[in-house]
């Protein structure tokens, strides 16, 4: 329970409150302000996880999201895999354990809410470090609408991990004042715990706000756990900071080996000593601060190992004053210790040659190979990068329209420079927006950075072996040996090397390994680093849970559900629904004890034998109006529409320019200049789009207007020999006799003052009336039809029965019995193709020789000879060779089954199929493989019930 590595004072933690948590079954304590990693380090625990391939112990190697080591799984309060202990804020009751490189998803549903918010700003600043805060303040003072997002729990960025002084006061005081000033601006949105994880086109940024994760079990239920901010910014300022870069050496992955800046952050921000005896291995001046700070905090710094031949004379003095030994021109060649580093092996480095090494005891090995600017967002926005020799890292190589990079993300590594850069970039953004700068106060005064020595770029220390324990990507267990294998295999592009070695593809997406991999690869190939370049950075910057991306669009809200005006009636009657596009349609209405087959057979028999009723409201309906409406439809339909009389109905087929059927349906002529076009349920939107496209782009001179009226009109086909009795009873004003109201005509009437349209349209082959009524009154009309039908045994039927009834008549469903290769002629609908019209969409294609090929697939009926097998839809159709055997493979396929049902009317199953030269095969027997046996089927015409149409016309 103790925290022996906690400093007696300092840090941005609340020592007055103690939090209890469990890690790997052991109970520890920490404080608000801690991360899981800092609390574990305070307890003296460095070894957190084991590596994915080699099972090597791994520890906390950095203080934030760039850490490649501390992968954990949270168990309580809600299971969540693959988090970094360095980014998990500590809360009471947290239960977690280390991961062997892989986690597991929760087995219980996530009950938390996630949501999304859109936000529009003039200037978005990413990162609330010194550069970002200045940029946000500058823009806010100019009156710009500003958003400032930062991934940490509090603002300050790098200042949280140093002892910098601004305007004579500790940095946190300046940060607090800046945050307070921003809060006073009404047009500033300032979000902490919010990671801008993707920068896309035109200033579009996605940011993930972790709203309640840090509250643990105390998270309020009515607040979403995480929120995706969809921010559209006129200017984006990326002030995302820089990641310290390690140096690769043998056994550089042991717990206790940590980036120097990370150790400094643990000390200053969390009040934690990451060890008692430290060795610092550096290639630059910045890491000396870590050694000196730790020394002042009581850590015994055994040695500073500086790879530069001359080291840093100025910083050397600082160390010597503190009694710290400095070894210049030396490197760490390896380490000892398994669960925790125990020794650093140090050797002189001269002219690229590593001398004999000696061991220095330590429990903490700090490493700094320089700094990699966080160019991730800039690169995501397709900004080109260039390699900077002095930094040993990649920098933005161009100005992007609307995106600017500031501070250490742009390679400015000193505090004064970062502050000035934030101002400069914000000024440029304001100028681009045409905003005056407004009243700006002077930038805070900071101590001048002491003069120093230039950094040295060192990617790796030769290990004298094959580099198989010199880790480049700790998360992937990928080493210098793997890079050597990649270049040895001939790979030259970093994109290929990345995929070959998997470097940079893990959870951390190569935050510490990417530039190293480029550098070492260039070294292995003997080319400049600029030549190998770097891989493209892709979103997300840090992992984002799918739940957050889904937001509220899950479960029933994933996709809109459309229901008809009579939906509640169907539900009350126990209908089983099916999805047709976004529509919920009754599939069948089972009675107690009935399965679908039984219900459908009953519904079919009742309809053909008496009367049935269908909710056909989902049929697409398009109101076509205008003086040129008839001409317009003539051009789109294969048959003649202009000759249709007002009061009549015609079936029509629509083809693409390639002559293939795209939709079918009936057309009602409502007036000389007005038609109601009916489409398939699934084709409604597509057909309206198709019509609009031709009207607007090809024939804008036609005076036609189109409107979807699908939802305005409910449609109820009343079907069967007794339909006349039912419709006649409900609408006594209408003469429903065949003479007065023949097939393919429509009549208007009213019911209780509500307009109703009746149409003699049949999709079943039976005598049928389609009842159209304004959807507001649909339920009442439906119930009256049901009531009037009761003496006749009216039976509501669903889509399954509708399909059987239409298939028995050979009526195709476009998209089920057809694909994009079927012409009206293939469907046996040459009668629906006008020979009189000089042209219509698709006509020219019918004249292609391929369309008169006698072996085209044609729609036919199939009757299984055993009168029992229901052929699975999609089954292939084959022909047996002489002798009754299958021909040798590849067995020629004649076609496939498109629709297949049991028929009450026929007393046997039947199917529709597209078969090569099908109509010429009528009467022949072909075979359909079903579950390993060949089922003989007879080829028939496609119309199996009432081919003369006597019932329909009656």
């Amino acid at each position, binding site marked *: 329970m103790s925290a022996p590595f906690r400093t007696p004072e300092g840090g941005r933690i609340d020592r007055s409150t103690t939090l209890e948590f469990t890690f790997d079954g052991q109970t520890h304590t920490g404080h608000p302000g801690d991360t899981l990693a800092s609390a574990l380090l305070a307890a003296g625990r460095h070894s957190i996880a084991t590596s994915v391939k080699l099972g090597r112990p791994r520890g906390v190697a950095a203080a934030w999201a760039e850490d490649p080591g501390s992968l954990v799984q949270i168990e309580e309060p809600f299971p969540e895999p693959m988090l970094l202990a360095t980014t998990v804020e500590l809360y009471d009751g947290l239960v977690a354990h280390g991961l062997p490189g892989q986690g597991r998803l929760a087995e219980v549903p996530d009950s938390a809410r996630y949501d999304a918010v859109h936000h529009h700003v003039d200037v978005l600043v990413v990162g609330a470090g010194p550069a970002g805060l200045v940029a946000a303040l500058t823009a806010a003072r100019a009156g710009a609408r500003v958003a400032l997002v930062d991934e940490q729990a509090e603002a300050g960025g790098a200042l949280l991990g140093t002892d910098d002084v601004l305007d004579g006061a500790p940095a946190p005081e300046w940060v607090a004042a800046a945050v307070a000033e921003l809060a006073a601006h009404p047009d500033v949105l300032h979000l902490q715990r919010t990671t801008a994880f993707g920068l*896309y*086109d*035109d200033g*579009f940024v996605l940011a993930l706000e972790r709203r309640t994760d840090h509250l643990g079990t105390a998270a309020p239920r009515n607040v979403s756990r995480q929120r995706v901010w969809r921010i559209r910014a006129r200017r984006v300022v990326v002030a995302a900071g820089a990641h310290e870069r390690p140096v690769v050496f043998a056994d550089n992955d042991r717990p206790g080996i940590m980036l120097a800046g990370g150790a400094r952050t643990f000390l200053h921000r969390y009040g934690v000593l990451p060890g008692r005896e430290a060795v610092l291995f550096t290639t630059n001046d910045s890491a000396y601060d870590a050694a000196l700070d730790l020394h002042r905090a009581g850590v015994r710094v055994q040695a500073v190992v500086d790879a530069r031949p001359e080291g840093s004379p100025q910083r050397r003095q600082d160390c010597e004053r503190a009694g710290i030994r400095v070894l210049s021109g030396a490197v760490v060649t390896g380490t000892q210790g398994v669960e925790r580093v125990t020794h650093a092996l140090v050797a002189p480095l001269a002219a690229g040659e590593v001398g004999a090494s000696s061991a220095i005891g330590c429990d903490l090995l700090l490493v700094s190979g320089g700094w990699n600017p966080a160019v991730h967002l800039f690169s995501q926005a397709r900004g080109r990068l260039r390699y900077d020799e002095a930094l040993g890292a990649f920098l933005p190589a161009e100005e992007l329209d609307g995106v600017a990079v500031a501070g250490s993300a742009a390679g400015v590594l000193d505090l004064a420079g970062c502050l000035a850069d934030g101002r400069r970039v914000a000024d440029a953004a304001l100028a681009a927006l045409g905003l005056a700068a407004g009243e700006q106060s002077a930038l805070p005064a900071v101590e001048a950075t002491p003069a120093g020595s230039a950094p040295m770029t060192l990617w790796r220390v030769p290990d004298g072996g094959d580099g198989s324990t010199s880790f480049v990507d700790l998360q992937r267990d990928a080493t210098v040996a793997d890079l050597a294998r990649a270049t040895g295999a001939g790979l030259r592009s970093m994109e290929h090397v990345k995929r070959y070695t998997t470097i940079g593809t893990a959870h951390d997406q190569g935050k510490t390994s990417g530039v190293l991999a480029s550098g070492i690869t260039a070294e292995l190939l003997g080319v400049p680093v600029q030549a190998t370049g770097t891989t493209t950075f892709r979103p997300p910057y840090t992992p984002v849970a799918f739940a957050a991306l889904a937001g509220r669009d899950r479960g029933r809200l994933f996709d809109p559900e459309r229901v008809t005006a009579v939906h509640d009636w169907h539900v009350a009657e126990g209908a089983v629904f099916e999805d047709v596009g976004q529509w919920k349609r009754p599939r069948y209405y089972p009675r107690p004890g009935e399965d679908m087959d039984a219900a459908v057979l009953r519904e079919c028999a009742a309809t053909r034998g008496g009367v049935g009723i269908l909710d056909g409201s989902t049929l697409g309906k398009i109101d076509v109006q205008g003086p040129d409406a008839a001409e317009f439809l003539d051009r789109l339909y294969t048959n003649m529409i202009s000759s249709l009389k007002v009061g009549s109905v015609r079936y029509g087929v629509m083809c693409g*320019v*390639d002559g293939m059927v795209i939709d079918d349906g009936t057309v009602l002529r409502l007036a000389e200049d007005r038609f109601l076009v009916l489409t398939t349920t699934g084709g409604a939107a597509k057909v309206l*789009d198709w019509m*609009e*496209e031709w009207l*607007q*782009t*090809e*024939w*804008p*001179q036609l005076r036609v207007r189109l409107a979807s009226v699908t939802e305005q009109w409910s449609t109820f086909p009343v079907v069967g020999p007794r339909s006349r009795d039912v419709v006649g009873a409900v609408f006594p004003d209408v003469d429903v006799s065949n003479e007065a109201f023949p097939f393919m005509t429509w009549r208007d009437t009213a019911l209780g003052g509500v307009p109703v349209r009746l149409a003699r349209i049949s999709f079943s082959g039976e005598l049928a009336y389609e009842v159209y009524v304004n959807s507001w009154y649909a339920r009442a009309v439906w119930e009256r039809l049901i009531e009037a039908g009761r003496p006749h045994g009216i039976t509501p039927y669903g889509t399954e029965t509708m399909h059987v009834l239409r298939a028995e008549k050979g009526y195709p469903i476009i998209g089920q019995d057809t694909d994009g290769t079927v012409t009206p002629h293939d469907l046996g609908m040459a009668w629906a193709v006008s020979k009189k019209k*000089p*042209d219509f969409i698709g*006509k*020219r*294609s019918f*004249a*292609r*020789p391929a369309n008169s090929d006698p072996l085209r697939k044609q729609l036919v009926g199939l009757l299984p000879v055993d009168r029992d097998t229901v052929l699975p839809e999609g089954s292939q159709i084959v022909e047996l060779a002489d002798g009754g055997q299958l021909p040798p493979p590849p067995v020629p396929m004649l076609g496939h089954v498109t629709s297949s049902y049991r028929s009450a009317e026929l007393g046997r199953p039947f199917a529709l199929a597209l078969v090569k030269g099908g109509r010429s095969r009528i009467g022949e027997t072909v075979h359909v493989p079903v579950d390993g046996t060949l089922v003989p089927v007879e080829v028939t015409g496609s119309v199996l019930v009432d081919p003369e149409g006597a019932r329909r016309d009656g």
Partner: protein
Amino acid sequence: MQLIECPWCGPREEVEFHYGGQAGVPYPEDPAALDDVQWAQYVFFRDNPKGRFEERWSHAAGCRRWFNAVRDTATYRFERVQRPDTTQAGTR
């Protein structure tokens, strides 16, 4: 997500738009007068340049109107958008 300038509505997110392929491929005056190759050229063949391309777009989830655009297929940048002149023969 890219913003596309609808000539009627102004800049809107790309998901509101529907791509309509190459512009300037009008429906032939008299399809019957074309031989099979010419007809196939109209039905199936379109340019596929890298760079500047004249295209048709529709603001499908907005005003539902079609317009023409010049876009760079390599950078996705729109050079200009243009309302079809409704007094002329169309924009296909």
